[in-house]
């Protein structure tokens, strides 16, 4: 009969009207500024750079300016300048570091490919989303200092993943130390004093940092192991 469907519809809306007062399934609003969203661990928004410590973020960046992420970034929102000199990284090893590292969050599409391709676990995805700005360049173009966040922060937002990364890095470091120890032992056994280790490390071509290249990649890494390529030729 005419009207049955209409009444059925009215019943559904009435049920929801009443339900909104007692049934949480029918009152789903999360009042945002007061109630912050419960972000899942996997949530990603924009990349940040991991530094080992909070005190000296610039000195302890894991990034060695290999520029893989810059090359792989689909929308080309990463810009890196290699340093001319080297600085000791967190482990004390002399490394090239990014003199300029900028990410234009107004271009970034949060695809996470930079994270996947980074062999140094130096760039990770942040979860901060309330970054609306009134200024296009001043507010949304993030430089090295703004991007650097300590490892502790990484642990805070992605605890499981960060623990895995730490474990992997520690294993790599141990392996590197073991190798260095063996090399030192071999050197000691050799009759003639060899070239100082620091000089060897500084030689062109050896600029490739030790950790990732020298050890087998962890099985859990989702990306295929690609050794860092030779540095890009400087742009014309």
């Amino acid at each position, binding site marked *: 009969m005419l009207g049955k469907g209409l009444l059925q519809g009215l019943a559904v809306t009435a049920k929801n009207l009443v339900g909104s007062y007692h049934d949480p399934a029918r009152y789903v609003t999360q009042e945002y500024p007061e109630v912050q969203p419960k972000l899942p661990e996997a949530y990603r928004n924009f990349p940040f750079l991991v530094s080992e410590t909070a005190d000296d973020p610039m000195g302890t960046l894991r990034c060695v300016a290999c520029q893989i992420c810059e090359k792989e970034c689909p929308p080309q929102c990463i810009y890196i300048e290699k340093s001319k000199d080297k600085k000791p990284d967190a482990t004390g090893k002399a490394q090239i570091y990014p003199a300029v590292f900028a990410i234009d969050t107004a271009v970034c599409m949060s695809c996470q490919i930079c994270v996947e391709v980074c062999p140094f676990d130096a760039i990770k995805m942040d979860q901060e989303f309330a970054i609306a700005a009134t200024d296009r360049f001043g507010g949304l173009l993030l430089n090295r200092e703004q991007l650097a966040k300590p490892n502790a922060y990484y642990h805070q937002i992605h605890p499981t993943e960060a623990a895995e990364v730490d474990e992997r890095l520690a294993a790599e470091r141990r392996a590197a130390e073991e190798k260095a120890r063996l090399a030192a032992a071999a050197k000691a056994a050799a009759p003639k004093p060899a070239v100082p280790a620091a000089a060897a490390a500084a030689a062109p071509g050896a600029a490739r940092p030790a950790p990732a290249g020298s050890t087998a990649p962890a099985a859990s890494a989702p990306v295929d192991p690609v050794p860092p390529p030779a540095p890009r030729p400087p*742009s*014309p």
Partner: protein
Amino acid sequence: MESPEALRDRLLARFPGVSVELVPNGSPSGQVSLRISPAGLREVARFLRDDAALALDQCSNVTGLDSPDREVVETVKESQPGAPGGPPVVIERKQTRIEPGHLEVVYHLYSVARRHGPVILRARTGNRTDAVTLPSLTPVWRSCEFQEREVFDLYGVVFEGHPDLRRILMWDAFAGHPMRKDYVEPDDYEWEPTPHGEVLAKARRHYPSAAAPGAVQPSP
């Protein structure tokens, strides 16, 4: 469904004046296609649609392809008379020639009734400038209507017999065919503070005044 070779032979027998060529596919997908000479394309298409065994009633996808003119460097071996008595000396000579480019349209045909496919048809234009006309297959399959308009818009292939051949994605006053490989984009790249080299060059062309050392420094 019959094999592409059998289909080619059947088409050749059915349409004597039409050239049907099997185009190999190097990828593991093994999707081999048939290149048809433009003159006979529509007849072949209609045959494929109406043939009871094939019943290719659906043209799923229409694609334009662009192959610009390219320089081919060939090594030509020439044998010259060598030292008297000895064997002729083979001299390798490199010669370059320009292989003329062409535009190509690819049709992916499936049969909804018989649940098979794809049969892939291809047709080439004579060149990329003046001989760019191909017969439209819209009279055979309605699904080609917008897709052929798109190929016309983005590649510049003119479809003869298309009921409404206009630009579809770009605006009517637009001049170029942007999907062609040699299309030069307008230099309006965002003048980013983090420009990559090529962007920088483009932007500099576009905004000559900006080439001077600027007042604003990038934030890093």
